[in-house]
């Protein structure tokens, strides 16, 4: 069992990373949408990716992975934002630049997530993170 202080220290770092890089990236991305500039939006996506990289480095320093809460929050936020994007695209209120900016964001995040899983757990391990066998189908432990 890990002692509580390193867990707290890790949480402080994660909060600091996202409070600064996450919100800065979001701001730049939105600025790109406002100014109809794909480059600016892509820069925002790059800052968000940087926040992920910083998060993974912190995880590495503390020898841990994403917590269940972080995973739920990340996937939830991804889903909500994706829904907003799809609704916007269906409603026809997006310009082409906005459309490509959104695709860049969701594409890069999805690719980054897969790359993270593959590098951390390997191809088979990454698959096993999602494919959970029922108790009755598991091999008996040796």
């Amino acid at each position, binding site marked *: 069992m890990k002692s*509580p*202080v390193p867990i*707290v*220290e890790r*949480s*402080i770092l994660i*909060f*600091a990373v996202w*409070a*600064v890089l996450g*919100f*800065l990236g*979001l*701001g730049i991305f*939105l*600025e790109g949408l*406002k100014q109809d500039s794909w480059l600016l939006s892509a820069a925002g996506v790059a800052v968000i990716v940087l926040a992920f990289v910083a998060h993974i480095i912190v995880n590495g320093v503390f020898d841990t992975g994403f917590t269940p809460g972080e995973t739920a929050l990340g996937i939830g936020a991804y889903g909500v934002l994706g829904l907003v994007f799809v609704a916007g695209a269906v409603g026809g209120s997006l310009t082409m630049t906005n459309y490509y900016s959104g695709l860049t964001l969701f594409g890069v995040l999805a690719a980054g997530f897969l790359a993270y899983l593959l590098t951390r757990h390997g191809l088979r391990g990454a698959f096993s993170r999602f494919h959970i066998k029922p108790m009755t189908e598991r091999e008996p432990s040796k």
Partner: protein
Amino acid sequence: MMWLPLYILFYAAVTLYWARMAARANGNYQTYFSASHSLPPWVSALVLSGASISGWIMLVGAEEIGRNGFGLAAILQAGIALSLPGVFFFKRLWLLGQRLQLSSLSELLRAYWSSEFLVAFSTVVATLFAVAFAGVQMAALSRLVVLLTDQTVSMPAAAMVLCFILFGYVVIGGMRAVGYLGAVQTVLAGAAIVGFAGCAVLQLGGFGALNAGLLKLAADPAAAGKFIVSGVVQFTAGGGRQAAAAHEGTALASLAMVFALMGLQSSPMAIKVVLSTNSPRAIAAGQTWVMAGAFGAMIALCVACFGAASLIDPSKDLSGLLTLISPWFAAWLFIGLLAGVQLMAGLALLTAGESLIRNVYKPWFHSSLSRRDTVTVTRVAIGLLVLASGLMQVLTPVTLSMLASLALPLAFQLWTPLLGMTWLRWFTRPGVVTGVGFGIAGVLLTEPFGIAVLSALGLELPWGRAPWTMSSAAWGMVANLLVTMLVSAFTQRRAFGGEAAQEARSFLYGILRPASRVRALRSTAWSISLAWLFFAVGPGLILGNYAFNKPDGGWALGMPSLWGWGLVSWVTGLGIVWFLSYKMEMASPHVGAIPDYQPPPRLRPDQRAAERERLRALFVTVAVAFGIVVLIVLSFGH
């Protein structure tokens, strides 16, 4: 409109998350005051820097440059000035706190100097920080909320929400919440400083355009004075009585400002963080690389850029800029400012609440109070302090501002007892107590608050605020130091305090004997430190007026000469802080365990009768004093 409430909601959720984490670790009340002295050193280093900077550097520092230019050049050295007290005191105070098992400045003062006057004074200073110094900054933020929401939210409503968020996490999580959340708040505040500067420079068209604008402004004879220090000193009667020639930004005004800033890290709130830390490992790194280095650079570069932008175009001041940029950036920068201010405010509230209840009320009036009840009453006291601050923000902003300006100069008067505890062992108890008394008088007599109170009582002083362009911190310290040294010289034969004081003196003397290498460097340390003080923030500042000017009228560094001088001074100042911290071992990591001091066991007599008598005497004194003041005001006041 949507973004600010959304970001504030997110910020409030984060504060509550950390409050909950802290409360669970505290066992609700067991380690509420000091987080069981377990704050990680790097967290403390961040919190100390963040609390020192809080929001004042953007709300006051940048505004000063934006309004009056670079004349008060000490602003650019704020990072160095703020780090120096920590270099001098933190390591030794931590060792003393560890040895004597103490957790606040009031307890240290009581144990070492056996002086209830010093305990009461440090409580007053802590309360001033909590109610007034933090209150003024919170009020400024509330006004920004009104602006950013197009007056949809009123100032009282904004003040109430911000105070409620602050109250929530301090009361629930105590020192642990203030520490953990403080580290995140420091990073946010730093990001906001950089963000503001970046937005301001981008709005003006880049760094080159900024300096071109400054050059154009300097060519205007009416504004040229904003780029120079207006002499070494001007012998004026002070603000409100006699105006200074050109402006009040003399070299000695800068020096006095540095003194005032040095009050921040000698205040009870800074020392509370030091004594709640589990190791002094990061003091040197924190003071050198975080405070003087990172934040020093932000101040000398970013705050200066931001101030310079509003000097060129006053519509790009803090509130103007927030309305010019996109709402999501404005909300993010606002949260950064809020984080910095609430970090300091939360820490000050906790320290003031503890001082009032644990260090004054309990020992004087209710010694049988249990630990749980002490925490409960402290929480009530913190609530009352927040309420007082909130009401003053809305109803009496002028009084709040006058009280706020007392906090730093009064905190700086604590330097003499701290010096006596840590370095100058020949300072005696009568010397320090009398000196601090004179220091308080010096501050009050040169501050608007003291002048206004005396005026209300019918006594008009022949001088105004900051006579000779020197602020009250310097006047108070001149009186304080002179009297402390004189009285100490005449009272050397008397005892230096109680058993704890004797123990502390011999402990520090035994454990911190300087190595021969350090002794050999002493004269070098004195020389370079004094030289830096002279040239960077003292009379030598006038050399910076034209040092980097070209003969043809341009600027050799592409920026105002004083700004260039300030950057050079910051780099050399950083070197000096590093030298003092590491090479002189003033803040270097200490290895080895510190055994607890076990005082000889004593019988504790029943205090209840004496406490009741004290309480009765307090009520009678307050009533009589109130009556006398009313009579004097009615007779002589106006």
